[in-house]
């Protein structure tokens, strides 16, 4: 994979096309929620209804995984993760995505999924420590016997790795397939693949957040 071109840097931090696309996604997300929640009515309009439906649907989904109380507690994090990943994935399907330097799907470079997976990882540790306290949480790694300690630690560390690689691999792979198909059959076939890309983007966002929810839920669960 070729390195993304650095557009400019702010305070020593390089800004690539993935970063600028992230900013655009943030603006879109904020705009959507601003419009949806600008004037909350008891009898919702079309836009508010869609926002309510999204929020309520996600809340119910996470409640099914980790219970209502936990879902409510970590909902903002999970929902933001979901929406951020979803929009990042879908941004790669928009026309001209990847065609010029300032517009690249953030999840198609490994750096962004890694950052998101690290966020999921640290959130999981935070949730576990918050629920059990440091000592009890660390004790969980020695269960059921002390011999399991290295395996438990490896399991914990593999999680962000698998999360980031899965997300990156799927989105990057999907883009590659589109590019290759485009070079073979320029008409119709790539758009079919792009439609599938919509589905893949959604599935990957769901998978990422679902796994995060499961990790948090297992970290906060009582030791057995």
């Amino acid at each position, binding site marked *: *994979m070729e*390195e*993304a071109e*650095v557009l400019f*840097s702010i305070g020593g*931090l*390089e*800004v*690539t096309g*993935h*970063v600028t696309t*992230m*900013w655009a996604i*943030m603006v879109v*997300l*904020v705009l959507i*929620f*601003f419009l*949806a*929640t600008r004037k*909350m009515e*008891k009898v919702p309009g079309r836009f508010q209804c869609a*926002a*309510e439906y999204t*929020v*309520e649907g996600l*809340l119910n989904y996470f409640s099914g995984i980790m219970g209502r109380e936990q879902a*409510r507690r970590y*909902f*903002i*994090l999970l*929902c*933001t*993760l979901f*929406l*951020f990943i979803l929009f990042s994935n879908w941004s790669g399907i928009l026309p001209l995505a990847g065609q010029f330097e300032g517009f690249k799907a*953030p999840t198609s*470079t*490994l*750096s*962004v999924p*890694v*950052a*998101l997976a*690290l*966020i999921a990882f640290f959130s999981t540790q935070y949730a576990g420590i918050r629920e059990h306290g440091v000592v009890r949480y660390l004790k969980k790694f020695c269960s059921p016997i002390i011999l399991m300690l290295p395996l438990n630690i490896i399991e914990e560390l593999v999680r962000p790795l698998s999360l980031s690689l899965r997300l990156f691999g799927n989105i990057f792979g999907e883009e590659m397939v589109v590019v290759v198909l485009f070079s073979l059959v320029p008409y119709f076939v790539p758009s079919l693949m792009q439609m599938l890309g919509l589905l893949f983007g959604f599935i990957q966002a769901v998978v990422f957040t679902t796994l995060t929810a499961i990790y948090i839920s297992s970290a906060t669960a009582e030791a057995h």
Partner: protein
Amino acid sequence: MSINLSTVIWSFLNFFLILFVLYKFGLNPVLNFLDNRSEGIAKDISDAEDSRNEATALLQEYQEKIAGAREEAQDIIAKANKMAEDERAALLAQTRDETAVMLEKARQEIRLERDLALKDLRQEVSTLAIMGAEKILRRNINAEDNMKMIDDFLSEAGEIH
């Protein structure tokens, strides 16, 4: 395939920024709004339930009141009827008494009048008899008869003495 540290850091910054913004202005308001609405609806339902119970209780109370009032009215009517009946009976009795008294009085008066009339009649009759007797006597009594009458009188008187 490599990791660009700048992009990772940017991702962190961007994610936490969007997390904060959505927490503050997006998701939390929606969640709170949904919670409030759920609570509002639950409250409305329980309020409606309360109102209905209250209304049912009131209805029952009023129905009881109406039944009571009806009973009372029946009582009052019955009482009034009885009173009227009593009054009527009393009036009737009084009238009967008065009538009897008046009747008695009338009878007495009639008796008195009759007695008076009888008395008058007797007087009249005796007068008439005497007048008739006088007339007859004037014409028919002769010396013989005169003597006889005197004799009879004297003998009667003599018997008494």
